[in-house]
């Protein structure tokens, strides 16, 4: 049983500040964390390893500092970690990233077949949810998105049964492995690793693969060249200027309170009043 978990190091978006003058995002000094959604993917892979044995390999594409995120995953119990890092990847959008990661996974598969690929639902910095599906497509793997539970895995028949959260309900899906699963948040709880895992993570000789090591020859498919997405402008949405008004009920006769409140709503939204009046008539 070999699972590959794709993770990304992201700035902790809860701590990101917007420059008060230039309106640009200030990344400096913001702690870098493992994309929280990816941890649900990692934990699910570790649970399968608990049940069936095998190997969990964690992969990330990013700058050298992403090493910390991979070590973190090792400390939870992942067996191997590969950092795909090369200046040639700079400026990659989701299309180029999925290309680079699928090439990397193909390389991994040369050494050991892969049964499952896991990714998080999406990242908290890009929020696109595109890289996982992109990898599945490029590797011609079955794709299961927004998975909330792995119900069953039959390794002999090479079949997997999962629950998938869909609009208006839960789908029960069966497909063949190998496949790619994007794991939904809140579906499991990350474990507290053993001391042994911590020691191993701290001492682990992290593999860093450059473009060539990842088996990528087509330079035009990665980095800025391989990225058709153009960010034309970044701006912070204007905060709402209107504040909620708090009406002290003690100042009003309870009999008229509803009417008073309605009157307040209608002064803010005159059209609403007209519309309601129209419908009533």
């Amino acid at each position: 049983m070999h699972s590959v978990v794709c993770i990304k190091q992201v700035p902790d978006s809860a701590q990101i500040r917007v420059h008060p003058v230039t309106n640009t995002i200030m990344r400096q000094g913001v702690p870098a964390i493992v994309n929280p959604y990816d941890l649900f993917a990692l934990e699910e892979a570790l649970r399968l390893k608990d049940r069936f044995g095998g190997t969990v390999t964690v992969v990330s594409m990013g700058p050298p500092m992403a090493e910390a995120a991979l070590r973190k995953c090792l400390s939870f119990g992942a067996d191997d970690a590969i950092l795909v890092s090369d200046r040639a990847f700079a400026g990659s959008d989701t299309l180029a990233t999925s290309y680079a990661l699928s090439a990397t996974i193909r390389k991994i598969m040369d050494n050991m077949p892969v049964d499952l690929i896991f990714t998080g639902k999406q990242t908290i910095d890009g929020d696109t949810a595109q890289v996982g599906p992109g990898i599945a497509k490029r590797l011609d793997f079955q794709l299961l998105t927004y998975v909330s539970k792995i119900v069953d895995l039959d390794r002999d028949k090479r079949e997997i049964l999962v629950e998938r959260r869909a609009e208006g309900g839960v789908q029960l899906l069966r497909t063949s492995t190998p496949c790619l699963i994007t794991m939904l948040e809140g579906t499991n709880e990350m474990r507290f690793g053993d001391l042994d895992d911590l020691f191993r993570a701290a001492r682990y000789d992290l593999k860093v693969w450059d473009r060539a090591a990842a088996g990528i020859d087509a330079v035009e498919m990665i980095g800025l060249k391989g990225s058709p997405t153009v960010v034309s402008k970044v701006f912070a949405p204007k905060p709402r200027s209107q504040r909620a008004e708090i009406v002290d009920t003690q100042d009003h006769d309870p009999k008229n309170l509803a009417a008073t409140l309605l009157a307040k709503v209608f002064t803010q939204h005159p059209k609403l009043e007209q519309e309601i009046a129209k419908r009533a008539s």
Partner: protein
Amino acid sequence: MAEKFDVIVVGAGMAGNAAAYTLAKGGLKVLQIERGETPGSKNVQGAILYSDALEKIIPDFRDDAPLERHLIEQRVWVLDDTSYMGSHYRSEDFNKPPYNRYTIIRAHFDQWFNRKAREAGALTICETTVSELLQDGSRVVGVRTDRKGGEIYADAVILADGANSRLAVKAGFRGEIDPKDVALAVKEIHFLPQETIEARFNIGEDEGVVIEMAGKISAGMMGTGFLYTNKESITLGVGCMLSDFKEQKVTPYELLDRMKAHPSIAPLIAGSEMKEYAAHLIPEGGYHAVPKVFGDGWLIAGDAGQFVNGIHREGSNLAMTTGMLAAQTLIELKAAGKPFSAANLAAYKARLDDSFVMKDLKKYRRMPEIFHHNKQFFTTYPELLSRAAQTLIRVDGVDKKTKEKDIKKSFLASRSLLGLLGDALKFWRAVQ
């Protein structure tokens, strides 16, 4: 966990990192255990870095340590409710490298310091709490952590686990910290553009200013305030003795809010955006509060050993130095093939006594007691000084002789002549 280490260092603050680095450099097999998510994530300090202490450990630290600004100006302010009286000392000598003091942000600095320790060969694990020391009779032989498979053995354990040192208390090496021996300090980091900071404080790129404050800012309690300039932010805070907070029923943030609203301070942080709020206990009991800091297989360094010079606002340099001295003691014993017994580790205490650490603490040993019992230093005098200054400066047709008489009268009305002389004498004795 069958693996055994020469030394386990508990904590990755100033003392812990200094110890781990020195031990690893000295060729010992060292494991460092940190409770926080990363080194520095739980550490709080003003923060000023005193170069000297770090130079003795990493001479070329300036090459890559994350430093904010080197300090070229020191301001000491005594405040009442509406004014401050102060002395400013600024010198171009402080602008000549190697610089003597820097502002730092601990979250960044500690990660750097810990990286240095790891590069030297120390093994650091984070998010792991040491729950207790493993003892064989009176001898410490390792630690128990909160992780599965969590017992680890070592020939010695250095406790650098901070002011409260739950480990030392649990093992009976020292008592619970006394509220009168510990200050509770709160601080905020306020973001401001670099150019604004440099204009407001009349400083160039990389140059910094420190303001130390006393007086009514502590609302009658024994304590002080501070304001430091970082690269793109201002750190300001206030700390008072925990026993005083308990007695006065003032919350620390109220004190800090009052400080920020002071007419002399508000303009310095105007238009800023608060980035961070932190609180910390600072052991300020001084010389008499220092517990026994060594025994069979264990040593205490940094805040855990109450090594703070509250009068000079020095703590991190004492932490680094004690961490280094603890490590050097172990390295020397190991080289001589001697066991880490209490008798042999007494060499650590000798090193401490011989260093500025214990010499400075001893010099000010009377200070905490005097300030505890003479709150007029924090209340009456700042107001008297301010009133005196204003009387002298304001031109209002009153002749100078009368003004001087008024000032003298105001002092005598608040403190008798004997009281004034007594205070002067107490102060003099305290700094001797």
